[in-house]
């Protein structure tokens, strides 16, 4: 399991800490929201103090920055709140400064926070991705999601970044005042989100107010949903988002996982049967990305639940089958 299930965590309840890592300039304070146990990749709320100045430089990790409050000068461009920046690993960003200070959400995707002063890119910088900067508040329109099945009316999206291979995405979302959705959802992917403004409610976790955050591994039930006054939030997934809706509040992540596999077997029987022959050397291969390799040595769902209700992380050791594990018929 890369990151534990952190839900909910309200960053307004804790104070900022000074970021003391070498490379960073004075005036950077942070609140850690979640961290990957293996790589140190993390999501943080970051406060840049008034007068903060940083020369041009790069991070060894891919970085995403979302400006929540105040403004930030990036080179000679004045970035207002709502600005979203995607910087591939090793690409140099211009000098940054802020007179009045600002509040941001910063995602280091591959490792702990790092900054190396440099006006040139790292020689191994990721050139396959473009550095992007968008004004998400005034430069983009809200869209109705086009997933099937889809969230209830009143939940709108702005896609800030989409990974072309995995469909992992970073997005702004809102719920209109009076939003409600009476179903329970889970996904094949992890989800994380931060409330920029407003409170929403979920049947499992209660209210998530402004400054509220969650990191939720795949297959965990969430919903039903409600928001009385509406919300504005930023969210991410680590792969393609499909909404598995149902109405059993007591189903376990393991049952949800089985149900997702059953759905795949029903809807894509040829693919499902082919996957089952994996132990006969049918490793995934994509002629569009011939150099990609796929880790099939072990799968870590992040969760493993027992009949007594306790759970722990479960990592399989190489190919094995769950086919003969008869579930206790509970219905």
């Amino acid at each position, binding site marked *: 399991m890369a990151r534990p299930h952190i839900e909910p965590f309200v960053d307004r309840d804790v104070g900022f800490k000074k970021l003391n890592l070498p490379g960073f300039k004075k005036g950077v304070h942070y609140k850690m929201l979640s961290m990957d146990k293996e790589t140190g990749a993390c999501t943080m709320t970051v406060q840049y103090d008034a007068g903060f100045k940083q020369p041009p430089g790069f991070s060894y990790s891919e970085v995403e920055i979302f400006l929540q409050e105040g403004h930030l000068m990036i080179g000679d461009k004045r970035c207002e709140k709502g600005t979203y920046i995607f910087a591939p690993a090793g690409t140099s960003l211009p000098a940054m400064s802020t007179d009045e200070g600002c509040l941001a959400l910063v995602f280091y995707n591959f490792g702990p926070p790092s900054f190396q002063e440099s006006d040139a890119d790292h020689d191994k910088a990721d050139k396959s991705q473009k550095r992007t900067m968008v004004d998400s508040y005034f430069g983009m329109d809200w869209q109705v999601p086009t997933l099937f099945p889809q969230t209830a009316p009143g939940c709108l999206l702005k896609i800030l970044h989409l990974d072309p291979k995995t469909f992992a995405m970073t997005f702004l979302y809102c719920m209109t005042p009076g939003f409600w959705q*009476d179903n329970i959802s889970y996904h094949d992917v992890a989800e994380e989100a931060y409330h920029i403004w407003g409170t929403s409610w979920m049947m499992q976790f209660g209210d998530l107010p402004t400054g509220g955050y969650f990191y939720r591994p795949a297959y965990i039930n969430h919903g039903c949903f409600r928001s009385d006054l509406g919300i504005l939030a930023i969210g991410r997934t680590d792969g393609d988002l499909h909404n598995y809706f149902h109405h059993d509040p007591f189903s376990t992540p393991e049952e949800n996982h089985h149900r997702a596999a059953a759905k795949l077997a029903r809807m894509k029987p040829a693919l499902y049967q082919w996957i089952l022959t994996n132990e006969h050397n049918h490793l995934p291969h994509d002629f569009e990305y011939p150099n990609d390799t796929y880790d099939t040595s072990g799968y870590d769902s992040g969760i493993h639940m027992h009949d007594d209700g306790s759970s722990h992380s479960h990592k399989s050791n190489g190919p094995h089958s769950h086919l003969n594990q008869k579930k206790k018929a509970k219905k």
Partner: protein
Amino acid sequence: MSFGSTTIQGNLRPKLTKEELAFVKQELAEQLERYQKIVQEQEALTPQREKWVKEFLHRIQTRGYHVHAGIKRVIPKEEVRPRDGRPLQVIF
């Protein structure tokens, strides 16, 4: 899976420095404390949550369940899976 693009294999400096290792160790220790606090808080919410679940099961059998977007369906009683003593764990 992890967040971020899949076009490169991760951090350009894969071996963490001494300072980064100490930072990660400290943050992971604090994260474990945050996790344990969340587990306790969510445990304390159990009686309230049981009430919310009852209300949800009532609503989907009266007002309707969201199947897709604005399409709702009233769930007949026989389609509601019996609880049969199953626990309601929400943090994993």
